[in-house]
């Protein structure tokens, strides 16, 4: 369950689509401060700073009650031991600063943005909220009602429902990428106590595996001193938890999530890959999927949308593989009346891609595309902060960003087509359709 509790929302040093080192890592200042891995990167933007951070306190650690990580995360901005939530919000709002937290499978994420002058305030509040949430009974009760209500709202979303069913069909019980069902969430939220959330915070929150990335108009020495002061004396934290690999693709699963009154059906089709992002075969396979289903020039958009007019949106990608072995999936929407045609066309393209592989010409064009879009994505403070954080979470050294173009350029045709054959089996697909498509089939156990 991905939840975000507060709303959040230049000048990367890089080169266009040619393959040359960009020296970003050389300009990063990376230090261990108060036990936190702090990564600072100064860019040419005036007055703006973006922060992206993470620590291992996600849903995977909530073994006693699956809602523990989310409820704990939701309490961070609801007041601390010294200030209530309104007083804290007022300080941030007065300067237009944004600070928010989210809970994902493995991580508690931190996002912030402020003007340069207000960065010390944001860091101070961030530290206080992470370290000393008040866990008031009143706020905890409110959070339970709000999260449970949001779950009911999600139940009306075809994309969410398809994703939930897909994850449960692809990943075995206990795997971090397997979502709990809405019924399970409802029961867990009803049962959880504030004492359990406090205990979760005590056991898992701490600096020892936390990463904090700051990008923008930075006085690096000053912010290092601020972080040292704000987080001094904080202890604890645990390592990320890697799950056992998901089972390889099983028999064909075709599941319908029946939702009345929906005018478009959300479809997910795919399999577990058994690969994490940094596994050697993952990059060639990722290039293969980019050719198949990335953006307007991917094969799926070119045929199922542009030629046949069956959908507004269709694409394919690998997902959920930062910490654990992930999956590949095709995502599409179809009108109920065009669903059958859409599924046939999609599977025809999948078969063709799998059987015949990709061409040298496609590979050449896609490499340029991937390198260029990676570079363009680094041209904002948010893009750069996200890239630096993902690099660390995926287990790479920071030079990985500089080497990305070389890595992509080194991928050859045999690697791509070999990876497609090895990790994709069109005969054993998981297919989920959520919407007004007839009678429901029993959900995957």
């Amino acid at each position, binding site marked *: 369950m991905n939840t975000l509790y507060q709303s959040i929302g*230049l*000048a*990367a040093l*890089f*080169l*266009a*689509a040619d393959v040359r080192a960009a020296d970003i890592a050389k300009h990063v200042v990376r230090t261990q401060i108060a036990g936190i891995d702090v990564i600072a990167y100064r*860019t*040419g*933007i*005036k*007055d703006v700073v*973006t922060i992206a951070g993470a620590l291992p306190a996600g849903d995977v650690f909530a073994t006693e009650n699956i809602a523990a990580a989310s409820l704990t995360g939701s309490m961070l901005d609801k007041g601390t031991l010294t200030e209530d939530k*309104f007083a804290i*919000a007022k300080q941030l*709002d*007065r*300067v*237009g*600063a944004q600070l928010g937290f989210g809970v994902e499978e493995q991580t508690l994420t931190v996002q912030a*943005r402020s*003007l340069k002058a*207000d960065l010390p305030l944001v860091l101070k509040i961030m530290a206080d909220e992470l370290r000393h949430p008040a866990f008031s009974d009143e706020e905890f009760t*409110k959070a339970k*009602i*709000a999260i*449970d*209500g*949001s779950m*009911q*709202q999600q*139940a*009306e*979303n075809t994309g969410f429902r398809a994703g939930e069913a897909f994850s449960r069909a692809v990943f075995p019980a206990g795997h971090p990428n397997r979502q709990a069902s809405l019924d399970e969430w409802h029961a867990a939220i009803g049962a959880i106590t504030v004492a359990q959330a406090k205990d979760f915070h005590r056991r898992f929150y701490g600096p020892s595996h936390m990463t904090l990335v700051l990008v923008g108009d930075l006085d690096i020495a000053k912010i290092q001193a601020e972080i040292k002061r704000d987080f001094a004396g904080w202890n604890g934290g645990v390592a990320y938890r890697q799950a056992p690999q998901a089972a390889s693709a099983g028999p064909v699963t075709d599941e319908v999530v029946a939702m009345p*009154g*929906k005018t*478009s059906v959300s479809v997910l089709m795919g399999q577990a890959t058994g690969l994490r992002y940094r596994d050697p075969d993952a990059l060639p396979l990722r290039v293969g999927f980019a050719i198949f289903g990335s953006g*307007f*020039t991917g094969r799926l958009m070119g045929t199922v949308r*542009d030629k*046949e*007019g*069956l*959908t*507004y*949106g269709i694409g394919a990608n690998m997902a959920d593989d930062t910490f654990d072995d992930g999956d590949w999936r095709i995502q599409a*929407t179809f*009108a109920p009346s*065009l669903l059958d045609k859409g599924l046939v066309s999609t599977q025809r393209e999948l078969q063709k891609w799998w059987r015949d592989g990709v061409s040298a010409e496609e590979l050449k*064009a896609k490499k*340029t*595309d991937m390198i*260029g*879009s990676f*570079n*363009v994505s680094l*041209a*904002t*403070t948010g*893009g750069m902060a996200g890239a630096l954080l993902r690099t660390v979470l995926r287990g790479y050294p920071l030079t990985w960003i500089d080497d990305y173009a070389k890595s992509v350029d080194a991928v050859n045709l045999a690697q791509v087509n070999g990876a497609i054959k090895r990790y994709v089996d069109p005969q054993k697909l998981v297919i989920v359709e959520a919407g007004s498509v007839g009678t429901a089939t029993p959900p995957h156990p």
Partner: protein
Amino acid sequence: MSSSPFKPTAIFALAVAVLNAPASPAAAPGGASGPGPAVAGFSYVQSAGGIDEYRFDANGLQVLVKPDHSAPVASFQVTYHVGSRNEVTGTTGSTHLLEHLMFKGSERFNDPAGDSVKQYLGARGATFNATTYFDRTNYYATLGSGDLEGYVAIEGDRMRNLWLHDADKQSEMTVVRNEFERGKNDPNTILREEVQAAAFVAYPYHHSTIGWKSDIEKVTVEQLRAFYDTFYWPNNATVTFVGDIEPAVALNLVKKYYGAIPRSPHPIPEVVTEEPEQTGARRVTVNKPGKIGSIEIAYKIPGALDKDIPALDVLGDVLFSGKNSRLYRALIDQNLALRAGAGLESMRAAGLFEVSASLSPGVAHETVEKIILAEIEKVKEAGVTADEVSQVIHQHHAAQAYGRDGTAAVIAQLNEWISAGDWTQYIRYDDAVARVTPAEVQRVANRYLSIKQSTTGWFVPDTSK
């Protein structure tokens, strides 16, 4: 919080600044004068916030250039001053469908030749798309500055040389229809459209940009061709360069790729319809399967460039923009609503001030509506505090800075002010907000948030299915 009164609700195809020196009067045709470069054929118009405006003498094309060399990236955008307000019954959705067909190629650039706009930009890692809204249609890309010229060439070509084949229209119609269907999956989208349709009965903001389903299905390629030939001309467009490019280089690219295109052979048609005065409160109800009810209350307000817009914008944020805002405390913090919002739907000719909420399970619509109206009455009677206004002003100021983080963000915001009719508001608007006083907020609340000028919509879930 955003730095402008525009909401990012346009639909997609492919789904503290200080004003610079006062604008110079337009130079005589034939050579630019002013702070910008002297490129023959362009008239310098004005500058603000590091952005120079020129007019291409040959065909009236408006050109904006904002150099920023902090990264080897540039964004280029073409804004056509045509949107769904230029449509009539029977052809609603045409602006948007045409926007989709703009990606189907021309004799010069097309898929079979391997150099269509998608292929060109896709092969270079560009981010690109197009959007349509009530008052404008825009096409844009962000890419390595070394690849910019090729994109400008394609945009210049497709301004007048689009293929517009019937077969392409047939296949794209079902694509757009699925976009329509996706929107209708969300009860709040339906409610939003029904409220707008009830609020505007005559002005073409009545229908949503995506159009009515039957019009999407039945519009002919000849009608789309007529629409294209009416509105896609340089004297009805603005091109914007932001990023790693010098003004002289930008102007020479415009000359090279737009120089052969003449002005429209006819005046660009204006929308002459005027919205009649609303004479009483209006209500709509949407019943569809679902679990969570919602409410939207919309009040008529003036167009985006009206002097009262900054105060209305501040009012929206006082009502809802964070934990200390009035509706957060009254609704979210009391577990009466899962989500709430207040702010402007700002458009060129007229707009709506909207307050909305998704109800918490088990909460009655009447309860939440009563609270929203009571909070509005409090503002009308007792006003807002200086502290509340000051806080919103600071939030706007910060949002303005955040909105300059990357060339793509800059062109997106510029696009909305271009559409409103005065791009310099991209620079000036923050100052206008900074001058708003509590008294002005109270005044605009009393002037515009009248129940007689309101349209209230309820989404009432049908739980029987």
